[in-house]
């Protein structure tokens, strides 16, 4: 470390609490920017640090990654862990709860990864996509393994409609990467800021899948 030859950093030779005051005294936007480098649950945990930190995590602009492993806690506590429906409901409520709390105008990433059911969750999923687009999401990743194929197709059509409508939808200008994953319909779509460069990359692993993909292509 290259340091000024004579002087030492006096400020931090002081007690820890002095440094603390300085951390908590940083402006809101800086604390939020620090929190935006954290995972969703890490950021949310800072809410209990002190009153100062209470609501700041809701303004993070980083990744809203609804990581399945975060639900281990709930699963452990659940008396009905053998019933996937309970987990599913909890997962959906968790995502909806966070989306309701989230205050920032933008997010870098929105990622859901959980087995959901078409008849129960279609409206929720549509809402999540709309939420992401409104927040000018850059990377959108939906993994509903094992997804009901009809839902995957619906989501794809829904998104493609948006993408085709570009540039009428300025919120799509931010979307750089779109990932949809399911066993039957597995492809990765990369959307650049310009529709002309929009590409749909398929990763077929079965004949059945190819058929579905063709359907998409026929759009």
């Amino acid at each position, binding site marked *: *470390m*290259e*340091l*000024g*030859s*004579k*002087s*030492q*950093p*006096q*400020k*931090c030779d002081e*007690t*820890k*609490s*002095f*440094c*603390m005051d*300085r*951390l*908590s005294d*940083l*402006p809101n936007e*800086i604390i939020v*920017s*620090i*929190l935006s*480098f*954290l*995972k*969703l*649950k*890490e950021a*949310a*945990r*800072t*809410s*209990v*640090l*002190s*009153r100062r*930190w*209470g609501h700041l995590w809701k303004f993070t602009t980083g990744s809203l990654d609804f990581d399945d*492993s*975060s*639900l*281990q*806690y*709930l699963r452990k506590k659940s008396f009905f862990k053998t019933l996937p429906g309970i987990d599913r409901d909890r997962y959906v409520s*968790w995502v909806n709860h966070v989306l309701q709390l989230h205050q920032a105008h933008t997010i870098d990433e929105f990622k859901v990864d959980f087995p959901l059911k078409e008849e129960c969750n279609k409206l929720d999923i549509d809402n999540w996509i709309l939420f992401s687009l409104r927040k000018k999401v850059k990377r959108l990743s939906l993994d509903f393994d094992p997804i009901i194929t009809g839902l995957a197709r619906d989501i794809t059509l829904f998104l493609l409609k948006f993408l085709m409508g570009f540039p009428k939808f300025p919120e799509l200008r931010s979307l750089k990467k779109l990932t949809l994953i399911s066993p039957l319909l597995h492809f990765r779509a990369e959307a650049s800021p310009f529709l002309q460069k929009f590409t749909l990359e398929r990763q077929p692993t079965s004949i059945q899948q190819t058929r579905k993909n063709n359907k998409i292509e026929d759009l």
Partner: protein
Amino acid sequence: MSNTSENPNPSSSSAKITLKTSDNELFEVEEAVAMKFCTVKQYFEDEKDNDVAARGSSTVIPLPNVHSAVLARLISYCKKLPQSNAVADNHEEEETKKKERKQYGTPGDLVDLISAANYLDFKEGLEFFNQALADHIQNKSVEYVRKFFGIKGDFEPHEEEKYREEYAWAFEGVDED
């Protein structure tokens, strides 16, 4: 009183700018480095407009909110990391970047660097040091973060419990140290 920059390339013909820190140390830095600090740039350009600083390198720009030790670190950062803060796209690269970020000292040092970068309107550095600070919070328990940064919890126990219940999903799989 003078603390000239440790420029290894004295033959460089590039213009120099002198910065004066809160503890009255003088730093002579290359213009290209100084211009990364928007606050300095603004000051420099205003001076130019006022035609006061036709002599260029002899201009002294005061930085009353920045300590010499912190400025030395910022300058050192500018020299070491001229490339952008592009997001690492694989795990290995991320680990390398994490190590780089670790070199910038204790959380207290980082808070100083963040404050200074913010005051100097040095966006690239601000992002870098914010991330370095975030590294210290990553995957840590609330108790650890409080202790590490000396944050005093001021919630009533029942209030904290309420938050912990509401955000139960956030409180599992955490290192305790």
